[in-house]
């Protein structure tokens, strides 16, 4: 990619080298960074209103879930043999969204892709909250949620262990590992910024908490050296997780016999799809943020342009996977598989499949146009389509496969009920509640990293002194 900067070889390795495209010409000095970014932390009425809305959605979700626990899963729209429905779809959807954050913060960090600097904090927070949301869904989905801990290998007097052959147990490990690492990674990256917050804080209690969270950061050379090491280590550690987590999630399907699931392409296909959906969600979040917090001169059109190219690339990978799936279904010569794919696109589920193909494969092609890549409004609209499309991709994988399996006598249909929708809505409420709380507690743009890419203040050049 054009924006990948050349790493500097003189002196100690630095986390990011700014290239021409990702520089922030409108940002003059460190104080401006501190002022402008910390200004976003002041709660506003609009923010309270949004938070209230998110909490309302969450309440709807909680109420629906309580009703479901009391009455049984029958209140959801399950229609056997469609035994998995909205909850598993939404689980995979949120896990997928959780991927972009780590990709942007870890993999692009290792690749020295400069455009990540201004968007990675936002993406990383999104990751943590998305995985937190996703982690709820397997519990919501199971018939006896109060027994979910049986999936965790813990020592017990019955000497019963989970079945390590089951992909669902792999999920438990994958998701919990991913949540742990991405939370740690987010937190480590935050330390210098928390220190900045601490320095500017006037409330003594808050200051005390921030002081603890910043581990007494003093901005010393040694601290920076350790910090960079730790950050690099975690970035390297997270990188394989980006690939493995969604591969494991895809095993939930690929390890089964079910036509439409039983395919080896799923791991790369799911990873590409996850990154694609994650970038979509990043757009959904960052574009309003840059507008309402007036951060257009930080998250520049160049950054958006670069991210859009990544979206275009992953969209094409996903599109390629769709086409390969059809090809293999035909080439494999298994009748149940062929019937299923025909039914997916031209039969019972044509509308879902075409929503998926349009949103994920066709509309993103518009990003070939530089004009549209640099048009935030279009990117935001497109990102909504990508979110919808990726939800439907999982719908198309889960529901039509189960509804059209080997046994024609058991072919059915599926329609979610208000409980499914309520919990889906609740998941957005849960996610945005955390995210909204986050953006008022911690800087949504990484102050310390942005400072690295703006020209340092030389003595006597500016109106104020150096840092």
């Amino acid at each position, binding site marked *: 990619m054009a924006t990948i900067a050349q790493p500097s070889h003189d002196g100690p390795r630095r986390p990011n080298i700014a290239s021409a495209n990702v520089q922030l010409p409108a940002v003059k000095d460190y104080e401006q960074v501190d002022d402008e970014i910390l200004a976003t932390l002041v709660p506003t009425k609009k923010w309270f209103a949004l938070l209230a809305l998110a909490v309302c959605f969450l309440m709807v979700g909680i109420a629906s879930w309580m009703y479901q626990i009391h009455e049984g899963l029958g209140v959801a729209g*399950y229609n056997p043999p469609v035994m*998995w429905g909205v909850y598993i779809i939404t689980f995979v959807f949120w896990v997928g969204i959780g991927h972009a954050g780590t990709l942007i913060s870890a993999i692009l960090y290792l690749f020295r892709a400069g455009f990540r600097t201004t968007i990675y904090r936002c993406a990383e927070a999104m990751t943590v909250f998305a995985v937190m949301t996703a982690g709820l869904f397997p519990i919501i989905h199971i018939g006896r949620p109060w027994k979910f801990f049986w999936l965790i290998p813990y020592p017990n007097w019955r000497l019963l262990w989970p079945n390590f052959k089951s992909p669902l147990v792999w999920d*438990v490990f994958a998701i919990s590992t991913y949540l742990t690492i991405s939370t740690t990674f987010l937190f480590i990256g935050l330390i210098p910024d928390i220190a900045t917050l601490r320095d500017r804080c006037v409330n003594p209690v808050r200051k005390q908490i921030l002081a603890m969270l910043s581990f007494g950061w003093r901005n010393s050379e040694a601290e920076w050296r350790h910090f960079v090491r730790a950050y690099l280590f975690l970035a390297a550690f997270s990188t394989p997780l980006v690939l493995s987590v969604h591969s494991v999630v895809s095993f939930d399907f690929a390890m089964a*016999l*079910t036509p439409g699931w039983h395919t080896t392409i799923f791991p790369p296909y799911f990873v590409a799809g996850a990154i694609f959906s994650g970038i979509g969600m990043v757009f959904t979040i960052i574009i309003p943020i840059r507008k309402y917090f007036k951060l257009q001169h930080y998250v520049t059109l160049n950054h958006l342009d670069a991210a859009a190219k990544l979206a275009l690339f992953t969209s094409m990978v996903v599109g390629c996977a769709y086409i390969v799936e059809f090809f293999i279904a035909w080439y494999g010569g*298994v009748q149940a598989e062929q019937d299923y794919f025909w039914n997916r696109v031209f039969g019972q589920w044509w509308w879902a499949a075409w929503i998926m193909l349009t949103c994920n494969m066709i509309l993103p092609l518009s990003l070939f146009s530089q004009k549209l890549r640099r048009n935030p409004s279009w990117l935001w609209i497109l990102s909504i389509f990508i979110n919808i499309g990726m939800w439907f991709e999982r719908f198309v994988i889960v529901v039509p496969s189960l509804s059209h*399996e*080997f046994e*024609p*006598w058991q072919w059915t249909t599926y329609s979610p009920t208000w409980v499914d929708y309520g919990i889906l809505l609740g998941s957005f409420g849960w996610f945005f509640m955390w995210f909204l709380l986050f953006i008022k507690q911690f800087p949504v743009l990484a102050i310390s990293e942005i400072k690295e890419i703006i020209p340092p203040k030389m003595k006597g050049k500016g109106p104020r002194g150096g840092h």
Partner: protein
Amino acid sequence: MSQDVNTTSPTDGVKRREFLKVIGASGAAATLVGCASDKVEKLIPYVSSPDNTVPGVSSYYATTCRECAAGCGLIIETRDGRAIKAEGNPEHPVNQGALCARGQSALQGLYNPDRFRGPMIREGGKLVATTWDKALDAVKAKLVEHKGKAASAVFINQHEQGSFPAFLDQWLAGFGLAPHIGYDAEAPLAAVAANRAAYGVSWPKLDFSAAKLIVSFGADYLDGWGLSVQQQLAFSEARANINEAPRVVYIGARRSLTGLNADSWIPARPGSEKAVAEALLAAVKGSGSLKSAADAAGVSVASLESLAKELLAAKPSLLIAGGNGEDATGTALAVAELNKALGNVGVTIKPAEGSLAYEGASSHAAVREAAERMAAGSVSLAIIRGANPAHTMPGAVKFADAFAKVGFKVSFSSYPDETTGLCDVVLPDHHSLESWGDAEPVKGTLALQQPVMDPVFNTRATADVLIALAKAESALGAKMPVDYRAFIAGRAGGAANLTAALPKGFTNGSVLAVGAAKAVTPKSGAGISQSQGAYFLHVYPSPILGDGRGANKPWLQELPDPVTKTLWQTVIELHPETALKLSIEQGDHATVETAQGSLTAPVYLYIGIRPDTIGIATGRGHTAYGRYAKDCGFNPMLLLPTVEDARSGAVTLVSTKAGLKKATGNSRLVTTEGSGRQHGRGIARAVSVDQYRKGELHEEKEAFVGQASTAFLPGLRSPVANDAQGELGDPNSKNKGQYDPNHWSGAAKRRWAMTIDLAKCTGCSACVTACYAENNIPTVGAPWQGGQVMPDRTGFGANITRSREMAWIRLERYFEIDREPKDVEFNPDFETRVIPMMCQHCGNAPCEPVCPVYATYHSPDGLNVQVYNRCVGTRYCSNNCPYKVRYYNWFGYGEPDRTQYAFPEPLHWQLNPDVTVRGKGIMEKCSFCVQRIKEAENRAKLEQRELKPDEFTSACAQACPSRAIIFGDAADEQWSVAKMLKDERGYHVFEDLNTYTAVVYLLKVNHPSPAAATKA
């Protein structure tokens, strides 16, 4: 009916039963307690145990089934004083151990939550609970009042075989009243009349095995017509002897289950059966043309000509006439002449070995005539027992209106049915499983009916009530026996003989013969072709619910109709061609109109009905009769005119035309059918008899590409999940894994397996009900079990519209036509295949590795085991099951405090204490009746012996009236199943998926017509 029926129980309560309930339920409760923190129920032992009762060990009682007139022998399993399972009596001459779905559902009649809990009396326009003394006093007074006034009193009794009808007539005579009317809405009276005229007996034995060709003129001998179980046993046995098996031709406007089991269908227009029979008779005798008959029937001349040719070539044949047309007796007589002409009498039709099931049944005309007298106001006392003419008589008779005009009405019914709802006093009868009786299924054999448990409610046996009334009020009392048990003992040759005969269930003897029923002149119609309307209205008795008496039993409501596969619902059957013409699609509402009324119901597109005919089943549309029956479906009897068969006085179900128009609305069909086509998946496979003879049994095209193996036997022995592709999966490998009976580890010497012979299976679905009864499977179709919590689905079958039925075994019915129903033009030549599908107990089960908590795993004896307590409900196992035989508890069907509870008091008394009642959120499936396996193994262990071959069997195999299902140990050559496994017709479903299933199906064999065979 508008009157409310109050069914609250009197205060004398059921304390002892509560006590027993606790004992029996505690087994199930203890298991539930294990997985949830529900309230703990205490286990209370007997202080002094009743004789011969060991807690937890079943007792068995032989008795006689009263669910229809056939009189099959029953063995009732009771546990701690409660009947829990009805099975056929293996030694009984009628059913030889098999039992249909209706017979098994007798238990849900016994424990029906809507039964009257004690006598009722009408006070202030409402039936309220009363005491036996008060109720009997009221009846006594009326009896005295009517003494000798024969014309002013009517007694309608549900027809049953046995001494009771004659006993009742004696009692009536004692009061100077006219003999009773023995009403049976289902009895094939026209066939009985013709049999009497032609063969001299009411019901000859039909020997299917001796025949080379079977031709049915609308006789639905597999749908509950006649002695259903006996006929099915004989039919399946004949068809299983493949080289000698008879070819079957069905003549009728609609392909019933019998029609679907036929090799050819001649879709004769309603009303033309007699012309066809007569023309065939002429043709067989060498004269006459079939042209006019073919025109009248709307079929091709060639089809009748080839049938006539076949009749001459295939001797002996068996021609059976049924049908409910206007001259059904005439048709049956013509068919009898054909039988005589072809020399079938005495060969395939054996009058000497007939049944007495229909002796003493009165004609429907008699009931209609009684209703006319009631309407005229000349009847002031009506007594009814068992029968429900307000529901089962044609609408034009207006029975309910007439009955309401009677001054004093007494019902002996146990259930709040439509007729009883109009009565002034209800003296609820014991259920047949609580009372004494007898029957004579075969001449000279007296089958006994005995109580298998103490009465559930405060009811009294009608016979004993009659004896008490007689003793108190007339000189007749002196002639009366002490009680009805003493009377039965008298028939059986004394109390000692009775005691000796009871364990077996029958003895030598005969029932008290009833006098000939009073002849009533039937009301005949002008002929079906003369009536108004564009379509013939073909009303037929439901093979599951009969005339409607099964509708209050959830097992039967939830049993899919073997043909339409609809349940909890009345549908209008239309041919797709007709539907297309009227632009009606499946599920659209349509209105059927006759001069008597109209009915609006959803349409089911059925390719097995003539395009000019509308099919509707009886049985539903109750306006009373308890929570499971009331307001469920529609009653097509209301559309029918008062037209009776001219000779027998039988009700004619096919006697009018009807108008049909599309109505507004559309509903989801309550059906278990996904796609009724196989789409080339090779699930239910068949060959023609010629292919069978040539040994061309397994068509490669039905297998998946790249999978050539049809050597299935190794699959049974090498089911090691993690070695599916390796050495153990190789048929030539010496290592057969831990399931090898000779394996050094000794891990398993048994491999439980099942064979299902599709040449025998008719699709009757008795196995489904057997499974419900044995395994405590909840029914889920009642409105309060789904509609309340799914506002978009309400009414009966709400859960089923989301495919949430729980049947561990299901009957898939596939039409061998490529196209889906909506674009099929009429063509009578289509093949139907049925296949029972249940857990295949795969050796290499896809469900097992995916369960995260080991809730499903493999036992060393080859069972795929489901551990309910361990299941957390991820449902991955179901997703990975290619056979889709896993069922999930979407609601707390087994939890008493929930609205969705499937066993409202006292239905839960039937629950099998050996099987856990499942809570919500867990998966369940066929267990191969593991409780029966363990019971037999434990018994063998206690007796210090090995299991004997075929010592026990699964519930489905036990009930199967086709004997198509065989269960046992595949690893032991002495078991029948091990022998059947070697049958060359065997195949596994989806063998190419490497699942190594333990269920082996044997190919169905078709017998195409000689003409079609030569053409091919």
